[in-house]
C-alpha cells in the first residue's frame, strides 16, 4: 500500500449537507490508469479536485510517494497537470501567449512546444486569439498544456468533451503513451473508455 506512487486512505468528503464519498481508498502505480466513473453530479469532479489538493477533506489523506500531499504541496503540484472542466485559457490571448503563461506555472519542463503543436494539429493556429477557435480546437489547446507540462501525474476531467472521433482517438493514444512511459493518469468520464493499460476503477 505504501509503496504505491499515488494513494488515498479513507477519504471522506462532505459538501454542505451531502456526503459525496466515505472511506474511499485507492492506490495507483507507474503505468496505471485510475478511471473515475459515475453519473453527473456523483462527485467525479470533486474527487479530482481533492486529488489536486483544492478541497479539504472531512477525513483521510492523499499520499504521493508515501508522504501526505498536504505536507509537500508545492512539489506535488510540480508533478501533476490538471485538465479541468473549464479550459483555464484566456480567450483574448493567442495560443502561444496562453501556453507561455502555462509554461511559467510549471517551469521545469523541457518539452519543445513546436512538436506538441504539430502533434495536436494546432500548429497553424498559433497566432490567433483563442476566441476565434472552435470548441474542439480550444480543447486541443488545453491538451497541449498537458503535453507541455511534462509531468508524471495527469488528472483529466472529461477529456473527450467537444472532441471529434479523431480527437478522441488522439487522447486515448496520448494517455496510452504516457502510461507506457511510466506515467500515472486519473481520468474521469461519464461514458466508457477503452484504453489498453492497467485500469483501476472507482464507481461513484
Amino acid at each position, binding site marked *: 500500500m505504501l509503496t504505491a506512487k499515488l494513494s488515498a486512505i479513507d477519504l471522506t468528503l462532505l*459538501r*454542505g*449537507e451531502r456526503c459525496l464519498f466515505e472511506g474511499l481508498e485507492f492506490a495507483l502505480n507507474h503505468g496505471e490508469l485510475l478511471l473515475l466513473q459515475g453519473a453527473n453530479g456523483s462527485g467525479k469532479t470533486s474527487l479530482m479536485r481533492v486529488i489536486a489538493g483544492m478541497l*479539504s477533506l472531512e477525513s483521510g489523506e492523499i499520499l504521493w510517494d508515501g508522504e501526505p500531499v498536504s505536507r509537500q504541496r508545492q512539489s506535488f503540484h510540480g508533478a501533476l497537470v490538471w485538465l479541468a472542466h473549464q479550459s483555464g485559457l484566456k480567450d483574448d490571448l493567442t495560443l502561444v501567449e496562453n501556453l507561455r503563461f502555462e509554461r511559467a506555472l510549471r517551469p521545469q519542463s523541457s518539452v519543445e512546444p513546436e512538436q506538441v503543436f504539430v502533434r495536436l494539429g494546432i500548429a497553424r493556429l498559433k497566432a490567433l486569439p483563442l476566441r476565434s477557435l472552435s470548441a474542439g480546437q480550444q480543447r486541443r489547446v488545453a491538451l497541449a498544456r498537458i503535453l507541455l507540462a511534462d509531468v508524471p501525474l495527469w488528472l483529466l476531467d472529461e477529456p473527450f468533451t467537444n472532441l471529434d472521433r479523431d480527437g478522441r482517438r488522439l487522447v486515448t493514444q496520448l494517455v496510452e503513451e504516457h502510461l507506457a512511459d511510466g506515467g500515472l493518469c486519473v481520468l474521469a468520464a461519464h461514458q466508457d473508455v477503452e484504453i489498453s493499460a492497467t485500469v483501476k476503477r472507482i464507481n461513484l
Partner: protein
Amino acid sequence: MWNFFKQLASPPHFYRLAATIIPWLAVPGLLLIAYGAYAGLFLAPEDYQQGDAYRIIYVHVPAAYLSMMAYMFMALGGAIGLVWRMKLAHAVGAAAAPLGAAFTFLALVTGSIWGRPMWGTWWEWGDPRLTSELILLFLYFGYMALRSAIDDTAKADKASAVLALVGVVNVVVVHFSVEWWSSLHQGQTLFKKGGPGMDAEMLYPLIAMIVGFTLVFGALLARRIRTEVLHRERRTRWVREMILSPAGGR
C-alpha cells in the same frame, strides 16, 4: 494538557459544560453590575468638571472595552480554527461577532449621548475613540456580511477567519492613525484615563462594572456558542441521542 483542551473543545462536551457555567458567570456578573450601577449612580461623588454627566462612563467604558474584547475572541477563534482546524473555535468567532457589534453600538451611542451635554453636539469627529469605534463597527458589519454571503459553513468559517485576522492588524493601525489625525485637528478626548488620578469612590464602581460586564459577556457568549454548536452539529449522533434522552438538552 493537550488532551484536556481537546476534550474541552469537543462539541458535546462544551455544549454540556457551557450549560453549567452560564449561571456561574451570569449571577456574579449581574450582582457586580447591580452594585456598580447603584454605587456609580448614587454614591460616587460628582465630577468637579463634568458634573453628573460623567456617570455615563459606568456603562460606556465597559461597552467600549468589550467591543475590543469580542474582536479579540473573533480573531483568536479564527486563528485557532485555521491553524488547528478546531471546529469549536470557528463557532466562537461566529458567536462573538453579533455580540461585539452590539457592544460597539452601545459604546458609540453612550459616547455620543455623553457628547451632547459636553460638546453641545451628538457627534464629534475630532474624538479619536469615537471614530475608532465607528470603524470597528464597520469591521464587524463586514465580518458578518461575509459570513452570511457564503452558504457553506466550513468555507464561511475559514474566509471570515482570514478577514478577522487582517482586521486585527488594521485595528491597531486605525488606533494610531486616528490618534495622529485628531491631534492635527485639536481633537478632544472623551474620558481621561482612570487610575491614580481618579477618586476611589468613583473608581471602585467602575471596576465592578467592568468585571461584571465581562462576566455577563462571557455568559452571553457561551449561550450563543451553544446555539452555534447545536446548529452545526444537528446531524450528528450525539445531538440525536441527547434530544431523544428523557432529560433533553435545551
